[in-house]
């Protein structure tokens, strides 16, 4: 089986865990005010730059120019107005990046928003639930919901940030598909979803001692105790 050979071949992860990544992420979180002045720029112009600069002097030209925050522009439209009216300042930002729209909301507002979008706006398909870990931020995890509307043929994302240990409300009451998706987020990041009917691990074995997709877990980190007790070998890593 060729696919089995690959994960074992983890020979070269030279990247120490907390190098550039968290700092870049940390900045992205704090100054939304800074990126706002950039908003009037046409969205196409910004991402086009690195691609155009690349062929001439690939690494050298692209690196210093690259901004440290996402160059997202404001998202406007009817849907935004309706959401603003319904939820007010519980939604902090409406943004567009590379033509994809997303909103940033308070953790408590997410499920009501998803419910509102489903019942009133036709976003009846929950595509995905996932998370991103930014250990340097005070609110460490960014949880992401991707929604799609068959009627409008439109896809949007909802994002929120939570602290380590903070719980998010489960979406299973609104979209049944959230069941396994939320379990996977729990399995990988240790984010618990309140009101989920079966908040257990799904891909990793039960009793596994860590949450593998957290940034402070290196790629070779194993739960040696679990491996020893359940498989009866010393960890292969």
């Amino acid at each position: 089986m060729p696919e089995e050979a690959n994960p074992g071949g983890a020979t070269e992860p030279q990247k120490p865990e907390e190098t550039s990544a968290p700092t870049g992420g940390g900045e992205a979180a704090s100054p939304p005010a800074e990126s706002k002045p950039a908003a009037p720029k046409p969205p196409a112009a910004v991402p086009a730059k690195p691609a155009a600069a690349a062929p001439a002097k690939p690494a050298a030209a692209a690196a210093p120019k690259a901004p440290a925050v996402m160059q997202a522009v404001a998202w406007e439209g009817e849907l935004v107005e309706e959401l603003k009216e319904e939820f007010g300042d519980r939604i902090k930002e409406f943004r567009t990046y590379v033509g994809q729209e997303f909103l940033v909301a308070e953790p408590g507002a997410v499920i009501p928003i998803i419910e509102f979008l489903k019942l009133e706006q036709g976003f009846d398909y929950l595509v995905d639930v996932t998370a991103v870990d930014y250990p340097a931020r005070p609110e460490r995890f960014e949880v992401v919901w991707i929604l799609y509307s068959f009627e409008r043929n439109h896809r949007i994302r909802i994002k929120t940030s939570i602290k380590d240990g903070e719980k998010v409300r489960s979406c299973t009451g609104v979209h049944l598909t959230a069941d396994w998706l939320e379990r996977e987020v729990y399995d990988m990041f240790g984010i618990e979803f309140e009101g989920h009917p079966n908040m257990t691990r799904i891909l990793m074995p039960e009793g596994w001692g860590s949450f593998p997709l957290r940034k402070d877990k290196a790629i070779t980190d194993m739960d040696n105790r679990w491996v020893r007790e359940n498989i009866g070998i010393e960890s292969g890593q």
Partner: protein
Amino acid sequence: MSETFLDSTELVLNMGPQHPSTHGVLRVIVKLDGEKVTGTECVIGYLHRGVEKIAENRTYAMFAPYVDRMDYVAAVSNGLGYCLAVEKLISCDVPERAQTVRVILTELNRIASHLIWLGTHALDIGALTPLFYCMREREDILNIFEKYCGARLTTHAFRIGGLQYETYDGFEAECLDFCDKLMPRVDEYEELLTENRIWKDRLIDVGILNAEDCKAYGVTGPMLRSAGVKWDIRKALPYSGYEKYDFEIPTRTNGDCYDRYMVRVQEMRQSARIVRQGVEKLAAGPIMAKVAKVLKPPVGEAYVSVEAPKGELGYYIVSDGSTQPYRVRVRPPSFVNLQSVDKMARGSLVADLVAVIGTIDIVLGEVDR
């Protein structure tokens, strides 16, 4: 009244992970009342390799071959989705010729995936013959892949920005030849199965999942279309120039196992149609866009999905401006579709559970990642 063993009503049975009808290492714990299924629970993760973690420790280009190992019977679709997602982040336009070759190979791969499905599913139901025919046709597709890029299964056919290899001499002729051969052979499969009484008895009205349930469970792909929803990402949110191709989205209305079979069979015909058009369109030109050797997408994120043979396959990539992705999330169709097995199997017979699992068309490499 004393209890005897005859009074025991419920039996808990373990199907898998080494059961042939589970198509890999899926374990289903089944609660039975006689032969009736009263509940199921899927236990997955036996093939979990931490693909998303690996992505964070590789450069963008280095991670590309890994995605082939998820849905290994449709590796080309996996690769296409990943390349499109990264191309979105770096705002790169893929040359026309590369896009056309991508469409041709992806559609050939869709046919290969559906052939594997048809053969193995017929085997589950008890029809041994179609497997050999399906494998024979699939072999032709794999030969085209092999000649094109050297690999048959985990092809790594595309690169970020286009293609690495130019097509080989006779590529067009072989694709057309295959399409010519495939059409009558699909008719032959249909002769074997479509009106076959046993086949119909085993599949019609088994494992019904209507449109509403499909949406609630996030089920996509042929399963959704068999329930009457005319939705295909190739049409709804076209990528790689699919809007320029003339093809139909086959749908059915009942949403049972039989309809899923019908939809997939018709999709093979539509894919062959697309391949033909692709070969006609194929004009000379560059096959690779100008992409930086050291790829550093600007800080940002994107979600891009493609219509894989199994449904919506999405990649959510977060870039922190470095050479390695900060996060890659794969939205696997098999994983999400598998969730609906309990809804479909509850109240049916054990033998029907086999049909239900079969028609979801799962690949455990993708479920577990």
